């Protein structure tokens, strides 16, 4: 597997993944994400979507194909907020900068900026146990933002929060995508979420996961929450849904 530094982009070339127990999770996945692109992969549960992200991040080596990405400052937002319960919001947000050896002044500056970006001002000294699910996810986002990652991987991060919070977080994510200019790869099984945030939606089949359809999303940024009630939005969501139905 090669990891060549490219201009803030991520590309998969013929990725296949067969686990030691014989389960074939992914088959021949090839696509790439350029700077300024936000690609969402939707697929049925258990189709290997998360496996794809683990491969992209290097947590898992594929059994076939190769990934090209700069892993030095890769952003990865997990399904759970994965906050350290013994650290306050600020200490959690500073963790990655700490692991990367930043000085404390710099950490402070980065965490303050990131906390502002996700709207957690005033909660810096709270411990995770006193935060709502949405706020924990924001803290997790802020933690990733401190590194200013050129590539941002999202592994179904908003699956556990309620619908209204999820919509808010979707709006903020697309705003961050605009302001921070990262390349995004987002995994979800929510079609509305996929269409609302992305420049492109890819549909993955049931196991073994393959990309079976792709849809360009034509709406311009910043996207207004009202977009969700637009007939065009509904039409595109319907098409994605139809493609997804064909998978199972």
């Amino acid at each position, binding site marked *: 597997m090669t990891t060549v530094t490219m201009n803030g982009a991520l590309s998969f070339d013929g990725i296949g993944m067969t686990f030691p127990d014989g389960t074939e999770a992914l088959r021949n996945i090839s696509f790439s994400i350029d700077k300024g692109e936000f690609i969402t992969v939707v697929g049925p549960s258990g189709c290997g979507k998360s496996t794809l992200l683990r491969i992209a991040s290097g947590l898992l080596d594929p059994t076939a194909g190769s990934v090209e990405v700069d892993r030095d400052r890769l952003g990865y937002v997990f399904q759970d907020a*994965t906050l*350290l319960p*013994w650290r306050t919001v600020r200490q959690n947000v500073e963790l990655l900068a700490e*692991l990367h050896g930043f000085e404390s002044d710099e950490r402070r500056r980065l965490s303050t900026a990131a906390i502002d970006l996700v709207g957690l001002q005033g909660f810096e000294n709270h411990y995770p146990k006193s935060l709502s699910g949405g706020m924990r996810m924001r803290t997790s986002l802020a933690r990733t933002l401190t590194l200013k990652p050129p590539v941002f991987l999202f592994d179904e991060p908003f699956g556990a929060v309620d619908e209204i919070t999820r919509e808010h977080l979707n709006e903020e994510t697309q705003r961050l995508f605009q302001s921070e200019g990262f390349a995004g790869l987002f995994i979800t099984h929510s079609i509305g979420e996929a269409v609302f945030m992305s420049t492109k939606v890819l549909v993955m089949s049931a196991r073994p996961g393959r990309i079976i359809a792709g849809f360009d999303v034509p709406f311009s940024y910043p996207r207004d929450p009202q977009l969700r009630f637009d007939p065009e939005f509904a039409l595109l969501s319907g098409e994605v849904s139809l493609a997804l139905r064909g998978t199972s």
Partner: protein
Amino acid sequence: MTTIPDVARPASADVDGQTGSPAADVSLEADALVHAPGLPPGDSRSKSLVRAAFPPLVLGSALIGLWYLISYVVLDPGRRFLLQPPHRVLEVGFLEWANFSRILEALWNSTQVALIGLGIAISIGLFLATMMSQAKMVERAVFPFAVTLQAIPILAIVPMIGFWFGYGTTARVIVCIIISLFPIIMNTLFGLQSAERGMHDLFTLHRASRLTRLRKLMFPAALPAVFAGLRISAGLSVIGAIVGDFFFGQGEAGIGQLLRRYASQLDGEALLTSVIMSSALGVVVFWTFGWIQKLVIGKWHETEVLG
């Protein structure tokens, strides 16, 4: 056997003349119970305190009542030395300084033994558990022995400890170590392995070193379990100190030696006082570790600490 009490306990005859005082005690307690709920309403803190204190006070009073019942009704005066009434224990055991100071001194000796043993067990336990968490091989090697250590009935190896280490403080400390080591190893190991996979992934992604992972992820994650283990082990260590005392009499006598002596002398008041003080030591140790736990991890960890 039956003739000894009269010789050994001439004081037991005094008791009959004092039936008045228990009644006074009881009414005093009843008074407190009536007044307690009448605290100013709205002061919810003291109200909940009363609510928390009320049931154990009632049960405690009932138990003291039962104690009196056994001392004065079940036991005839000739056999009352078997269970002296509470006020006698208070007068002879606690209020006669010669008796009480002796008990306190012995208790202090046992406390020292228990704390030294616990301290060594904590050091060994934390070290072993950390090693086990770092290498599966070490875990596989140590685990069966740790379980065996726990399975050995302590009384079975106590004579051997005396045989090897003499019958003094060293042997007593070793009993404490053996008896309190297992919960520390197991709880610490469990705690070190309790950090979620997602958190480990995060540290892996950002290329944290083994030491960084241990320091910033595994140790803090282990703290709640470590404290749970400490509280168990602290209690066991107190037991170990007293058990050790029973077998090893050389050097500074601990409370276990006193318990033995008072029992053989049929000194009921001092015996009960020693038992109460030993229990108090156990409770204090348990609370102390609960308090330390609250201090260290209470801010972020939601645990109910008794007391």
